[in-house]
C-alpha cells in the first residue's frame, strides 16, 4: 500500500482524537538540528469545523486487536487497515515541518498485537525522527495502557508530551465499553510519568522567572504589561519551580482525554474527576471529546443522537475556569444542579447565581475578584490594576483599555458610579447574552481555550 493511501486511512482513524496542541514547552534551536518548540504553540490550519491543526496527527496503525465499543478501529469493525513504517512517518513529519504546515508529530496507534509491541514500533519511529533526521520540533506520544514501564520511559525521553487516555468518566463505563482495558492499567503509566517528572524536577535548578512569571500575583501594577503575552502565563495557579526547558523526560508533561456523552455521567462528576486528575497526576490538560455516534452498538447512544458540541464547549470553559481562575467544581456545576447551563457560559452562570457579590468596584477590587467579573479575563484584570494607579477610571477608560464591556458593564462600578443603562438584573443579562450568543464573542473564548493562543497585551 502506498503512503498516500495509508495517510488517508490513518489520519481518518486519528481524527476523533481532539487533543492537538503543541504548547507547554519552549525549546531553543540547536545547531545542526531542524526546528524548535515555542511554548505558545502555533495553529497552522483549521478544519472545516474549526478545529486547529498544529501537529501531524495520525495513527501509526489502525490494525487494532482491542475492541472498544465506540471506536471505528476496533477489532470487530470492518474498516480498511493500514500501518506506517517508522521511516515513512518520520519523513512525512520533516517534510511537513519544513513547509510550515505543522509544529510536529502527534503519534498514537491502535494496539498492534500487544501494547509493548506497539510501543516498540513507536519508539523506532521517534528514534528515526529525532536521531536520524535530527528533528528538534514538538512530539506528542500516546501511551497504551499496559505498556511496560521501561518502554514508557523510552517514549518519554523522545517525546515532549505523553498522554494516557482515561477514555470514559467512570470505571464502570470503562468496563462496559472497553473490555480490554481497565482503570488500574490506565493509572499506572500516569503515575509513572508523574513520578519520573517529579524526580527529575528535584535534580534541576530553579529557573529564573520569565517575563510572564514576573506578572504573577500579587500584581502591583508597577510595570507595564509585556507587549506579547499569553493568557495561560497569567494565571493564579502556582507554577512548578522547574520549567520545561531543561527537562529530558516529557518536558511538556502529560495530558489525558475522555469521551463525554457516550455514558451517563453528569457535568459535576466530570469536573470533579478533572480536578482530581490535575491534582493527583499533575496533568497539563484534560481534553473532552464530544461523542460522535458512529458505531451501532446497544451499549451506546443511537447513531442519530446529535453530537453534544455545546456541552463539550461548556466543559472546556468550566475546566478553564478551574485551572486559571481558581473556581472549584462545585461552584460551576453544583451537586444539586449537576449540569452546566448550555445557554450561557459557566462564569456568567456563576455570577448570576451569586448576584449579591456584585457590583465589583473597579478602583478597589482584588485581581481575583476582577477576574470573576463576566467579560474580564486575566489580561484585562491586570490592565485595570495597572491603569487605576494613575487615574480614577470610568467606563470610557475601560473601553480605551480594550476591555469588552458588553457584559462587564452590568457587574461593575467605577469609583462608585454605575452605568444606569446596565442594571444588575439577572433576567435581563441572561436574555441579552443568549440573544447575541450567535455572535462572535463565542468564538474568541473558544479559540483561547482550544488553541491556547497568545493574547496580545
Amino acid at each position: 500500500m502506498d503512503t498516500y493511501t495509508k495517510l488517508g486511512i490513518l489520519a481518518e482513524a486519528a481524527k476523533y482524537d481532539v487533543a492537538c496542541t503543541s504548547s507547554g514547552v519552549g525549546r531553543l534551536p540547536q545547531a545542526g538540528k531542524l526546528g524548535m518548540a515555542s511554548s505558545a504553540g502555533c495553529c497552522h490550519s483549521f478544519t472545516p469545523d474549526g478545529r486547529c491543526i498544529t501537529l501531524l496527527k495520525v495513527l501509526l496503525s489502525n490494525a487494532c486487536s482491542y475492541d472498544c465499543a465506540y471506536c471505528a478501529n476496533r477489532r470487530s469493525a470492518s474498516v480498511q487497515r493500514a500501518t506506517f513504517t517508522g521511516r515513512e512517518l518520520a519523513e512525512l513529519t520533516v517534510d511537513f515541518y519544513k513547509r510550515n504546515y505543522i509544529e510536529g508529530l502527534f503519534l498514537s496507534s491502535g494496539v498492534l498485537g500487544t501494547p509493548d509491541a506497539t510501543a516498540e514500533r513507536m519508539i523506532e519511529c521517534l528514534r528515526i525522527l529525532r536521531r536520524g533526521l535530527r528533528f528538534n520540533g514538538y512530539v506528542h506520544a500516546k501511551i497504551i495502557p499496559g505498556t511496560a514501564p521501561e518502554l514508557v520511559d523510552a517514549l518519554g525521553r523522545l517525546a515532549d508530551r505523553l498522554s494516557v487516555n482515561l477514555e470514559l468518566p467512570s470505571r464502570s463505563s470503562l468496563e462496559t465499553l472497553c473490555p480490554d482495558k481497565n482503570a488500574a492499567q490506565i493509572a499506572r503509566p500516569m503515575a509513572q510519568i508523574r513520578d519520573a517528572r517529579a524526580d527529575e524536577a528535584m535534580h534541576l535548578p530553579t529557573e529564573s522567572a520569565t517575563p510572564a512569571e514576573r506578572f504573577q500575583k500579587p500584581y502591583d501594577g508597577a510595570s507595564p504589561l509585556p507587549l506579547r503575552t499569553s493568557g495561560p502565563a497569567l494565571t493564579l495557579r502556582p507554577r512548578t519551580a522547574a520549567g520545561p526547558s531543561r527537562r529530558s523526560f516529557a518536558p511538556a508533561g502529560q495530558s489525558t482525554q475522555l469521551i463525554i456523552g457516550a455514558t451517563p455521567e453528569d457535568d459535576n462528576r466530570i469536573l470533579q474527576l478533572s480536578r482530581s486528575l490535575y491534582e493527583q497526576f499533575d496533568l497539563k490538560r484534560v481534553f473532552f471529546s464530544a461523542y460522535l455516534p458512529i458505531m451501532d452498538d446497544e451499549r451506546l447512544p443511537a447513531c442519530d443522537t446529535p453530537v453534544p458540541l455545546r456541552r463539550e464547549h461548556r466543559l472546556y470553559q468550566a475546566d478553564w475556569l478551574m485551572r486559571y481562575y481558581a473556581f472549584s467544581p462545585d461552584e460551576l456545576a453544583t451537586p444539586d444542579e449537576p449540569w452546566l447551563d448550555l445557554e450561557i457560559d459557566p462564569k456568567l452562570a456563576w455570577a448570576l447565581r451569586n448576584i449579591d457579590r456584585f457590583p465589583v468596584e473597579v478602583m478597589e477590587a482584588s485581581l481575583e475578584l476582577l477576574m470573576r467579573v463576566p467579560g474580564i479575563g486575566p489580561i484585562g484584570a491586570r490592565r485595570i490594576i495597572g491603569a487605576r494607579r494613575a487615574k480614577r477610571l470610568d467606563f470610557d477608560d475601560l473601553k480605551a483599555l480594550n476591555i469588552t464591556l458588553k457584559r462587564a458593564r452590568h457587574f461593575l462600578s467605577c469609583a462608585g458610579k454605575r452605568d444606569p443603562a446596565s442594571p444588575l438584573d439577572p433576567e435581563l443579562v441572561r436574555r441579552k447574552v443568549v440573544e447575541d450568543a450567535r455572535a462572535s464573542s463565542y468564538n474568541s473564548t473558544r479559540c483561547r481555550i482550544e488553541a491556547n493562543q497568545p493574547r496580545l497585551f
Partner: protein
Amino acid sequence: MDECMLALADRVWRGLGSSVAKGCPSARRGRCSGRCEGACVTKIAYACAADEPSMPEAVHRYVRLAFNVGSAIATMTTHPAVAELDGLARLVLGECERTRQFARFSLLADGSYLASFKPKANTVPFVAAHFARRMGTERFCLVDPVHCVAALHEAGDRRCHVIQLDQALAAALAARDDVSPDERYVRTMWKRLYDSLALDGRGPDERGYDLRASWMPKRFWDDLPELDPRAGNPGAYVPERYQSA
C-alpha cells in the same frame, strides 16, 4: 530611505529610549531595558508596520507624548494617544501571528525553500527571527510582495537578512515556480491529511457560524495547499524516501 532620514530616525528612537527610561522601575543603566519586552518603546516599531493611513499621525502623537511625560507613559494606558498606538501595535502583532501560522514554504529545484505571503501589515521584519530559529538548517526565502520585503536565510546561519526589494523583483521572486519534483507529492499528502481530518456533525451548519473562516481568514485561502483543489492527485512521481514503504 535616504541616509539622513535613517540617522535622524535612529536618533529619535534612542532619545525616546532614554526618555521613557527615566524613573522606570525596569530600566537598566538609564535605558529602557526591554525587560518588560519594551512595551513603551518597542510597540512603536510594531505600530509603524501597520498599513493604516492613520499610522504616521498616531505614531507622531504618541512619540510627542512620550517625550513629554517620560516613564509615566507606561501607566497612561487610557490616554487616547496611547490607546490608539496600542490598537495599531495589536493589529500588527495579530498579523505577525498569522504570518507564522499561514506562510507556506515550497521546496525549489535548487534545494532551498520559498514562501510568498501577503499580510495586511509589514510583518516580515518581525517574523524573520522566528523562521530562522525554526528552519536553521535550511536555505530559505520568505517574501512579501505587497510590502516588497524579503527575509533571506542561509543554511546554518543564526539569523536572516531582511531586505527591501523593488516591486518588480518582489513580484518575480514571489512568482517563482521552479519547484522541486517532490513538491507536488508532499502537497498532495498534506491536503490528504487535511481532508481526512474533517468531522461530520460539527460543521458551520450544526454550529450556526463558520468557525474556520474566523480563525483562518479567507484572504489567505488561495495560497494554502490544503485548500487547493489542484493538490488532489499525487501524480506518478514518488520521491525516493517514500518508495520503499
